[in-house]
């Protein structure tokens, strides 16, 4: 093996932040190389520099021994570097083939392209129908569209940014089989993740970043997960303390909650049944796009539901809007921080008032008391360690993790009876995530019911007392998390999928077919 990509002394600073400092990275030909690090460690900046999206301040790169400095992604693609982003750039209303064609420099005719897609997807075990409409596809299938789009360019280096965050465990297995086949054929893969287990399963070499610097290179299989985690975070993290909670009576009951799909590509909820006791944390898992947003909106009151479908402490609240529900104690924190949970251009004081006026002494006879709102914002900032110059700062100026702490803190400090959160630690660094999880546990300890909707299965095992899977708008009956295995969770998540059931035996078949002579 010889080096495909060599990065030497790469540095990049943004105003106020050093994203990369003297980063060295070598990717060999045909290897799956892990890039490990917490959120904000500089992984994204580094791969964006490799992909030509970011121009480094200093440092050199070489591809196959030749100097390499792509001014833009097009040049990177011409040089043989392809990237699958964490967030897909696909058009819902177009077909798979049309979407793939849009991402190409000189797309062939649609029929030719469809045949090529079918061929590549067969060759790499990526089940995909070129004529399917992207809006109808699951997240896993959408990711396959992105991967196939890259593979059609026959890349030398494939960069994958947190590819498994939207996949079920079984879909992850299929993806890994594909990546291993690619690597065997000589394609190098730069694999970004903060999930240690999967890196240990997939990669033989890992470069670990912390605060923009390389803190180590290792074979992830030769060191323990704990050692890896310590390298990534810098200190050892303690798991949240779940003890000391008492169960109370049922605080929230969903009775055959059904809602038609809001909009063309929304998901309908059908027949959801769930009870949440005081002091209990219920985890709702599922792959993105299976009704998580709709469930949150139905609970927060943004989406109208039938009168008897939701009971809060025995009271039917289905017909009530967000204001009335919040006044009764049902609070929510949606997934999207900017634009949904918070208004980007408004100050933290105003964002504190956004939901705070309904339960905090901020509103008097229709008039807002900005002094009270400001002190409420200040309270959230202090109790949740939100790093910001002050409550006058605009929400969009905060980092993702800090804004998330603010949004969760704003709801927690309003003493909810029931709190519903969607993806509470998405894109949040480990320390902040631990703080948020602890806050949710403390809230339950105080007697409130907590519903955590999340795609992070580790989070469910760490937080929840019971687990239910949300699948195409249906909820499985909840099961206790104690003694629950990843495999069982995966089966629950994949359970009701119709067209792209990703079963483990299928994955094995695919893997076996790779080993067989062509």
């Amino acid at each position, binding site marked *: 093996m010889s080096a495909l990509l060599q990065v030497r002394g790469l540095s990049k600073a943004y105003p106020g932040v050093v994203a990369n400092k003297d980063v060295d990275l070598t990717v060999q030909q045909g290897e799956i190389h892990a890039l490990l690090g917490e959120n904000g460690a500089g992984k994204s900046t580094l791969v964006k520099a490799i992909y030509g999206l970011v121009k480094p301040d200093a440092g050199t790169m070489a591809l196959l021994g030749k100097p390499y400095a792509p001014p833009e992604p097009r040049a990177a693609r011409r040089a043989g570097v392809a990237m699958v982003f964490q967030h897909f750039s696909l058009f819902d209303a177009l077909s798979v083939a049309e979407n793939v064609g849009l991402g190409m420099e000189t797309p062939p005719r649609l029929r030719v392209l469809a045949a090529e897609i079918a061929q590549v997807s067969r060759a790499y075990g990526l089940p995909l129908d070129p004529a399917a409409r992207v809006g109808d596809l699951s997240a896993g299938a959408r990711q396959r569209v992105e991967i196939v789009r890259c593979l059609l360019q026959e890349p030398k280096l494939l960069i994958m940014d947190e590819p498994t965050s939207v996949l079920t465990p079984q879909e992850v297995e299929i993806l890994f089989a594909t990546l291993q086949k690619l690597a065997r054929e000589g394609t190098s893969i730069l694999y970004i993740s903060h999930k240690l287990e999967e890196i240990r399963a997939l990669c033989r070499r890992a470069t670990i970043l912390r605060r923009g610097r390389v803190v180590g290179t290792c074979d992830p299989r030769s060191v323990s997960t704990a050692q890896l985690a310590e390298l990534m975070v810098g200190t050892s993290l303690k798991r949240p303390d779940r003890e000391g909670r008492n169960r109370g009576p049922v605080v929230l009951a969903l009775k055959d909650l059904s809602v038609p799909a809001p909009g063309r590509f929304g998901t309908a909820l059908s027949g959801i049944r769930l009870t949440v006791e005081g002091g209990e944390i219920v985890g709702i898992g599922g792959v993105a796009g299976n009704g998580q947003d709709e469930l949150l909106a139905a609970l927060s009151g943004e989406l109208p539901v039938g009168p008897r479908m939701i009971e809060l402490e025995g009271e039917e609240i289905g017909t009530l809007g*967000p204001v009335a529900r919040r006044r009764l104690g049902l609070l929510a924190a949606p997934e999207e921080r900017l*634009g949904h949970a918070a208004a980007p251009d408004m100050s933290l004081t105003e964002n504190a008032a956004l939901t705070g006026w309904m339960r905090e002494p901020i509103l008097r006879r*229709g008039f807002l008391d900005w002094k009270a709102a400001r002190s409420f914002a200040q309270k959230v900032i202090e109790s949740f360690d939100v790093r910001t110059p002050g409550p006058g700062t605009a929400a969009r100026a905060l980092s993702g993790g800090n804004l998330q702490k603010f949004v969760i803190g704003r709801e927690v400090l309003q003493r909810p009876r029931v709190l519903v959160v969607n993806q509470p630690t998405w894109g949040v660094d480990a320390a902040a995530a631990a703080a948020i999880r602890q806050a949710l546990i403390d809230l339950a300890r105080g007697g409130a019911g907590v519903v955590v909707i999340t795609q992070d299965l580790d989070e469910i095992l760490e937080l929840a007392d019971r687990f239910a899977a949300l699948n195409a708008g249906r909820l499985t009956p909840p099961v206790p998390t104690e003694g629950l295995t990843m495999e069982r969770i995966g089966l629950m998540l994949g359970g009701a999928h119709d067209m792209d059931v990703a079963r483990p035996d299928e994955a094995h078949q695919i893997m076996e077919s790779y080993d067989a002579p062509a």
Partner: protein
Amino acid sequence: MIALERRPAPSAVWRWATPPLAVLLTMVAGGAMFAALGQDPLVAIRTIFWDPLFAEQFASYARPQLLVKAGPLILIAIGLAMGFRAGVWNIGAEGQYIVGAICGAAAGLALYPADTRLILPLMALAGALGGWAWAMIPALLRTRFGTNEILVSLLLVYVAEQLVAAMALGPLRNPDGGGFPGSRNLARWDSSANPELIVGTGMHWGVVAAFIAVIAAHVMFTRHLAGFQIRLMGEAPRAARFGGVRAGRLVILCFGVSGALAGLAGLFEVTGPAGQLNIDFGAGYGFTAIIVAFLGRLHPIGILLAGLLMALTYIGGELAQLTLGLPAAAIQAFQGMLLFFLLGVDVFTNYRLRLGRRRIA
């Protein structure tokens, strides 16, 4: 290469620097236009901006006109700004202004020639209601059927123009007018007259209403929950819904208030400066108020200043037509430039200019 780079946060300096800068650029470009028309640009600019207020021979007439013209502009623009901040686009204030005048005038004329102080307040109420009702058409069509309120409200202006012509020729025509179109002169009927309150200032009840609206709007935007929700809906509609804002209600509120204020402006115009309802009652205040609202940054105090400035260009423009023989179209183009430059320069509030060959991804 010149590139625009998004600022991390909107620049407060640029936010307030853009209107004066836009005025300056308008003067430069307008001066060039006047020069192309064969006028001395400096004289033309002075005639428009300086002479109406400070030149001996014009000021006695022109100075009161400033408030007369600014009053309806400010009153209408305040209402529009409420909607614009919420992302509700009422482009039909001109129609609501006309219908308000029709309803107010009709209410008064129905009681002619009664002599009581209650008639003007009654007419004001009818005018506001008329403007409100006309605005409810696009508002309800949008909330019920999802129609585009920009189109509906704009097209209703032309309906209102036909309506006022029909009224001036038909039901509301002055029976003692010798067959000429137009209603009785409401300014000369004591019960309905909206007189100059302080001699030589141009101050009438409409101007008073405009000042009250400025203060009320300022208090609402800064302190009241409704103002907060309006800003929320305009800036982050999903966050607004999450925060309990009912979009439909807010659309109706914004249209209702802007319609009522436009109607009120129409009523005070027809009972005061205009005097009577005639075929050509609509003078474009409703459209110019859109420029005023944006020129004033959708901020009540800004609108107050912008309204005065816009009124000045009106009066100065007339003066320039009179003394320099500039065509009316040139003055309108001049006013249009103001909005053009404002929107153009506005980019710098959110973006900064970067020179050089740096590429931005």
